[in-house]
């Protein structure tokens, strides 16, 4: 059965309730190697852009939540000046997670579920350019057994990729094909950082290893960037935009921290989060946060995505990786597939922690009447 036939089945049960929540607008800054603006200025710009798309003002916002990381920015309490992007006077309702903005979106979604406010903004921002990820990231690992070994994220991804290859679940050629496809897609997306890079699979395979079995093309760039999404509850979503991206499922799961205690070729947390978010039946496009090529294979297999599902048409984390925003960018890209491109069912995924430790899955749907025709807005509520 194809994704489209599956999608038809799911649509029959999709009746919007007043308590349903949709993404109505997204905005991001292009991922770049070094952004000269401060994080606060980056957030001001993406919040402005996202609100402008649906004609909202900051005073319309009932709740906002940011995702950022002091370890990355190198400043204590950097979320405090970042809050200036929302204008915190008179006092506002807001929160912060020391995680990717996708988890900030999760908190905003939970907050909207309370039912007393209708509009929330979630943000993610980060500037990896300020530090050296290879030296910094071991510090997020287990401080007793792992951090003293300086296990950097690329080496860890290589240990994972080798097990995937040697278990027969992928090949170096498939990884190079993922890199080539991501680079082709990135060439058409001005928000991505790696754009004019080599796209020929044989030429990529001819390049030397950076960390055997990973080549440079299997790795993400070091990026700065920011992203914001506007979430709206109930009927207001359809008043604000032609075709809201309804969140029909959102779940996140975590596994044991020490990657050596897990089966690195599988992602049980992704599988459970995907099931709890409503499953992948009918999903046409999946934006998976896979900063390393091999992780895309693991995520695809764990979610059980069909062959005809379009993976990462944005170019993915492999071609733009503004940490603390990368996951929210994936969800924003999945939402834009509905808001702008008329897709019916899409999936956004975010990950956090070493070697896919924690995973968040967001399933989105657009209102559709007859097969393939977007319905008049809100009519099937």
């Amino acid at each position, binding site marked *: 059965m194809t994704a489209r036939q599956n999608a038809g089945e799911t649509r029959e049960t999709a009746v919007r309730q007043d308590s349903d929540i949709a993404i109505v607008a997204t905005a991001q800054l292009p991922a770049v190697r*070094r952004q*000269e*603006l*401060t*994080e*606060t*200025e980056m957030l*001001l*710009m993406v919040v402005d852009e996202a609100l402008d798309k649906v004609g909202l003002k*900051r005073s319309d916002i009932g709740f906002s939540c940011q995702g950022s990381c002091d*370890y990355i*920015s*190198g*400043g204590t309490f*950097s979320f405090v*000046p970042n809050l*200036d*992007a*929302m*204008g*915190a*006077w008179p006092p506002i309702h807001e929160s912060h997670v020391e995680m990717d903005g996708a988890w900030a979106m999760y908190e905003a979604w939970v907050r909207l579920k309370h039912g007393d406010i209708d509009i929330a903004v979630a943000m993610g921002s980060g500037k990896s*350019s*300020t*530090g*050296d990820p*290879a*030296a*910094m990231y*071991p*510090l997020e690992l287990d*401080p*007793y*057994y*792992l*951090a*003293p*070994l*300086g*296990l*950097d994220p690329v*080496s*860890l991804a*290589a*240990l*994972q990729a*080798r*097990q995937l290859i*040697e278990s027969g679940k992928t090949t170096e050629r498939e990884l190079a094909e993922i890199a080539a496809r991501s680079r082709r897609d990135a060439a058409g997306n001005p928000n991505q950082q790696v754009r004019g890079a080599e796209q020929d699979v044989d030429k990529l395979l001819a390049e030397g*290893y950076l*960390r*055997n*079995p*990973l080549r440079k093309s299997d790795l993400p760039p070091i990026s700065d960037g920011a992203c914001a999404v506007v979430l709206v509850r109930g009927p207001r979503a359809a008043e604000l935009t032609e075709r809201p991206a309804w969140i029909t499922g959102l779940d996140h799961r975590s596994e*044991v921290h*020490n*990657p*050596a*205690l897990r089966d*690195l070729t599988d992602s049980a947390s992704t599988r459970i989060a995907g099931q709890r978010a409503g499953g992948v039946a009918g999903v046409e496009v999946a934006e998976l946060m896979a900063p390393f090529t091999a992780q895309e294979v693991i995520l695809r297999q764990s979610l059980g995505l069909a062959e005809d599902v379009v993976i990462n048409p944005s170019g993915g984390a492999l071609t733009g990786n503004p940490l603390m925003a990368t996951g929210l960018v994936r969800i924003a890209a999945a939402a834009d597939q509905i808001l702008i491109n008329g897709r019916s069912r899409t999936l956004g995924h975010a990950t956090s922690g070493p070697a896919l430790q924690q995973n968040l899955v967001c399933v989105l749907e657009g209102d559709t009447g007859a097969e393939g025709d977007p319905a008049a807005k809100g009519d099937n509520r």
Partner: protein
Amino acid sequence: MTVSTQTVSTIQFPYKRTLGPVMGRFFSELTARRIVGIRSGERVIVPPMEYDPETGNELAHDFVEVGPAGTVRSWTWVAEPIESHPLDRPFAFVLVRLDGADTDLVHVLDAGSEDAVHTGMRVAPRWRDEPVGRIDDIVCFVPGEHADSPEGEPGEAQDVTTMEYFSKITYTDVLSPTLVRYANNLRAGRLTGQRCPQCNRVFLGRGYCSVDAILLGPELDEVLPDRGVVSNYTIITPTPYPGQKETEPFARASVVLEGDEMVIAQQQILDIPVSEIRVGMRVRAEWMPDAERDAAEITSKGWGTVAGFIKGWRHTGEPDEPAEQYMNRVF
């Protein structure tokens, strides 16, 4: 003369962590050149955890000696080690399944060359000469069945209860265009900010209005007076800690710039006893000499600072302003 737009800073944390009975036992055994895991149902977990990773249930302290040899289950080659890596020559990160264990241990392998490494190869630990009870008491693994040990028998296991870990991160902060203009003006002895067209407040060193959440561009730059009024202060009795340079009680004051609401916090008041500082006191900036002005304290985080350019503030001798006018301008 323009300022450097880049600041490099290193933060360091000397941690001392308690280990508890499970990790403490593992690290204690390392000092006697033994590796132990912990039984979790049918499995032996190495390195040991306090809880079953599948269920989260606490595990009984049933320790099992494993290894010392084991089998490589995955590897990658690091051709150019960096400072935070444990070896300073090319090496492999490996997952090792120690004999008798059911989980893998992350460690490093000193194999000489990439060609010598493959999944399934047998490896054994090289022990540190003087063990201290850390994971790097195993300096690395080496190819073969036999541990590489210092001369002589190991002593009794030490009772290791804590672990020291020195954490260090270096950041390179590049100033935003707003901050570059701000720092260049400070270098020239001018305090500048942007006035918000919506609320008429002035903000220095940030480039946006914190109240209205709008960007403030260079067209809104204006030179601000380097005079003001003390709106708040605190007297600090220093306690010694690494980096503390003060030994006598000292004051930190907030200064409201003359004619505006902008508060510059954490300022020194010069040349008077701390007991004579008061709210309402009129002060004027004492600028650093040209040659000593330095933008190192200005970063893209936070809300702007005058540190590195203004040494402190000196009483002008004029009569005080009424203190009650400054009650809402403390910070």
